[in-house]
């Protein structure tokens, strides 16, 4: 799991969590959010298949933080959130919608990344992900987002019966 979408989604969440402090937002949050947005949008186009809901969720929440705190970024937050939502179903439509909502500069970055070799972008995403994974013990935001994201690979078909029983048994005071 080292796709640009994943790295982008985590960056969007971590950046969004810095929105409450204006000072940190200006110094770091806004830049991490931009990196996240560019990586996520690039990833949608590169992968070409619907993004897992669990991967898209941190991105959405990060954008919600930006919106709630009314922080300035070079893209339309609401529009990008719509694109992120759509990316779980229709990646092509989502990519077009995301490009419409990104600012001129960020759109340039997305195009530049797509012009590069795919492995370069993947390598960059991997480095970003590694940096974030290393910070897992430090940062509650990273830990929270990774926990959600790591669920994306899980097989959920078993949930219906066995996990219900399992969780019930865990709650009931039987040995």
């Amino acid at each position: 799991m080292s796709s640009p979408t994943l790295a982008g989604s985590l960056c969007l969440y971590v950046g969004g969590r810095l929105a409450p402090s204006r000072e940190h937002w200006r110094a770091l949050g806004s830049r991490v959010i931009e990196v996240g947005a560019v990586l996520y949008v690039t990833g949608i186009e590169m992968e070409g298949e619907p993004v897992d809901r669990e991967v898209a969720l941190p991105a959405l929440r990060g954008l919600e933080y930006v919106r709630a705190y009314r922080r300035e970024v070079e893209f339309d937050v609401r529009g990008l959130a719509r694109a992120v939502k759509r990316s779980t179903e229709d990646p092509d439509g989502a990519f077009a919608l995301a490009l419409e909502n990104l600012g001129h500069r960020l759109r340039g970055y997305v195009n530049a990344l797509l012009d590069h070799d795919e492995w370069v972008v993947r390598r960059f995403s991997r480095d970003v992900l590694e940096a974030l994974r290393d910070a897992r013990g430090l940062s509650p935001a990273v830990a929270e987002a990774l926990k959600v994201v790591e669920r994306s690979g899980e097989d959920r078909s078993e949930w219906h019966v066995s996990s219900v029983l399992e969780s019930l048994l865990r709650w009931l005071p039987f040995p």
Partner: protein
Amino acid sequence: MHVTVWTVLAMVCMVLAAISLVTGLLLERRIEATTWFTVADLLVCAAAIYVALNGGQFSELLPTWGLAFAILAALGHITYTWIRSTLWLLLGWLRGHGGGQEADISRPSRAGALLTRALERVGVEGKVDRGDVEAARRVVEVCRRWGWE
């Protein structure tokens, strides 16, 4: 005990209640259930002392209508919470993932954001976790290493 001592105690309760409200708002930027309970407890203490000083009974604090309203509100609240969480679990389950699985990634609190932005204007900076700042710094560092300024 002397009346003055009780009056002072009642005032201490009120001051403590005010302090827990204000610190809850300023430091945590939200008022959690425990804070509400603390405040309510302290206010009830103050009220009990006030009533006792005036030579009344504590039950005078609960006029019939107030009691009826409180019971109705509690019933409404419990029913609403119960229905909501049952629906949430059921719908989550029907959709094929565990009910409420998505809830463990935190959402911004609108009221908190509003307050933070209001306090910003008077120079009170909002709070973020130091670890999150460090994580963001590392991401920016990676970008710089890759020549993305």
